[in-house]
């Protein structure tokens, strides 16, 4: 089966910067590539930070602060796992359960269901 039109959906309202995707991916890539993965140099996914921005002075509840998991060029969408009927390692183990995998059109539909603060990535 081809996964050419597959991507990752990130519900980044809830990404807690737990780093699970980065570490899960490291161990996955080490197994599939058969070599050591250095998180400083060759990560398969990284968590980016937006903010924190304080949106309104005097309002302690007005913040914009997000973490956003972003796959790198090494991301293979865990095709071997998809073929076994398993989720990608990052998607399965994400503590906030904020990532999904699937065909892009299906992810677009999911994004409308989930609402704001979503991102679809095609690595």
């Amino acid at each position, binding site marked *: 089966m081809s996964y050419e039109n597959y991507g990752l959906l990130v519900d980044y309202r809830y990404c*807690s910067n737990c780093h*699970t995707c980065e570490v*899960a991916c490291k161990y996955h890539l080490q197994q599939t590539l058969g070599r050591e993965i250095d998180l400083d140099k060759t990560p398969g996914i990284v968590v980016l930070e937006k903010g*924190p921005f304080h949106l309104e002075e005097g309002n*302690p509840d007005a913040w914009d602060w997000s973490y956003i998991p972003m796959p790198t060029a090494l991301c293979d969408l865990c095709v071997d796992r998809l073929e076994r009927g398993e989720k990608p*390692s990052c998607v*399965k183990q994400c*503590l906030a359960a904020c990532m999904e995998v699937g065909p892009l059109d299906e992810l677009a539909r999911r994004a409308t269901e989930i609402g704001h603060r979503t991102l679809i990535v095609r690595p």
Partner: protein
Amino acid sequence: MAMSREWRRENPDGSVTVRSCCWSPPGDHPVGCGLLLTVKDGKLINVEGDEEHSITNGRLCIRALSLPEIVHSPERILYPMKRDPKDRGKDAWTRISWDETFDLVCGKVNYFKDEYGAQSILVFGGTGREACIYYYPLGFSTLQTPNVCYGQSGWSCYGPRCSITDYILGAGYPEIDFAGYFEDRYNNPEFELPKYVVCWGKMPLASNGDGLFGHALIDMMRLGTKIIMIDPRITWLGAIEGNINLQIKPGSDAAVGLGLANVIIEEGLQDQEWIDAWCYGWDEFVERAKEYPPERVEELAWCSAEQLRKVARCMAEKPVSIAWGLAVDQNPNGSQVGHITIILQAITGNIDIPGGLTLGPPSALLGKWRMETRKDLAPDLWDMRLGAAEYPALSNAMATTHPDFTLDVLETGKPYEIKMCWFNSSNLLAPTCSAAPTRWHDALIKTEFNVVQDLFMTPTAMACADVFLPLPTVAEHDGVVITHYGRNTVFLGAMNEALRLGETKSDIEVCIEFGKRLNNAGPDGSSTWNVFEGDTRDQFVPDFFTKQLEPELGFDFDELRRIGFYQPGYTYRKYEKGMLRFDGEPGFNTVTGMVELYSTLFDAWGEDPLPYYEEPRWSPVSHPELAERYPLMMTTGSREYSSFHSEHRQIPTLRHFRTYPDIEIHPDVAAQYGIEEGDWVEVENPFGRARQKAHLVITIDPRVVHCRHGWWYPEQDGEEPNLFGTWKSNVNTLVPHFDIGRLGFGAPFKSVFCSIKKVDDLDSIVPKRSYDIVKEQDRLAEVEGVDPANIVDIHREHRIY
């Protein structure tokens, strides 16, 4: 619940996958996340989450995912070792066999017992790891000493909350309701989603305290719950759209709680029917709360009166659940913080209702056996427990010594000398679990014989130990994981051995094997340990767990392995059904049978029976003479995903996420001091100093800095005096010894003043001596400029000179 797979499965490639529930070591709290551990050719080759686990659903943190790296770390210690006591502090270890280890250690134990009495042996337990349920029986039953110690000043972790709950609420540990008891979780018809979860001095996403799977909060937010954060820092969790932040001065929590109660009462939002039926001391409490109008609280605690009112109105709704955190414990005013937290849940009728505050039954599931091993101590020996008579509020609820009193005993040799110490999973010096760690160091290197159990060489073991007993990791031994150490069992999971490296022994194996060899019998002539059958761990360990499980739950250890884990269900409103009292009457298991807004026991122990606010004792307000020198308030102790307190520093994948500890400083303040992002900063106060790297954030109040705890450097020289750099970033050196609440609980780990300055590097720090706040007031005055009149000196009568 029944899981569909076998707990041990052979794969086509010859590997074996073992299902397990995670505890420790390395450290974590008993959350019991579902693990699948795959082993091939004697190596742990893969760890994945178990999707059949109804709480974690396949999710895992990076510490669990990194288990292969931890298990096979070249730094692991896999064989018992000894060192000549004259070589303490030197890397002069010799590998020995277990036969030699048993002979050596049992010989010493018997010698000290015969010569000086069993009370001359002291057992230390660390925090969080499974040792928490084994260090008591190791002391009481295996070694038969009454002295087991959690070394943290004021017992400042979990114990105060449990004790206050005993006295005020008469129940097991109160936890938020995240439907963990139910197999069908949030879909359970009995469960109701909390409208608000209040995280008070707690950030559960990273800390997963005591058995709460932190990311359950994210699950509940998806369903509609909003989070209220009460914290000196704005956290990411609080910053999420729709959540609410009460950003407060460190240590001001009691004022905040009383202010919240004031608003609820002023606006008539309380559940009067519930209060009239189930609370004691309402009228007295109302009078006290009147003293804390929001405008006064704004001055004391820095949060705006307007925001305080907003939070109070939310908290008066139903159902609301408070997740109370470590900040309750790490505060000399913490007994009052715990009291007011329970009061707020009581007067709004949120106790033991669906989506409210859940309560464990008065008798802890499984966990109680550890306390029952006390029967192996004769009453006269039990009465020698250090600090028990002096601090009844602590010793009635906790089975340990008083930690601060214990250091005084170690330092003075009075009322009797401690000859031997046993550190069961405690790296006391690094530290997480001590204040004034340099004083503990100086005292502990003088005892005659010390034993350490751990995974890796630590500063504590390098400084003090004569024998090192290696522990197996969570992947390498059988056991059970029980949330909240049995005080509020959300679930009970089987921990299964997937492989075993070297010659390690788990905590329970050590208890049983030393227990059998020491052949102890209690005053009634029966031995706790000889009843567990078999000579090898695959016999006596399952037998041990079966003998704990069967009487209470009706199934054995093999059945627990088969079902994976057991969720006991939950009965709401137990107080109506007579399920909280031993006599079966409705109400609560307290002196009055009610929730005590006015505490009869506090009164009897010389403490104010009502909650009150006490300004942090080492703040610019309390010491105006030093306000200019130490203008900032320091808070410590927040948690990270990549480490458990002082652990995981030697694991490259985890260290990647935090190479050095950071001190959070507001950019405006940093600019005043010429400090830029990434600069080394020295933080100092009259008691100690530490160096950490500047991290500039707008989410911290300009009057506050936050420092990391538990930092040492396994890559540095381990020998004395460097001890893996344990005195370089050690923020606990800034926390004074014996500066605790009246009842004996709570030290200011999160609320002491400090100065900051830019420095060139980490390594050139000159460690500072920690002066005693009672015994060395003249030196504090002379050297540090402290006005002794401003020292809160309430424990003088219990100090040993």
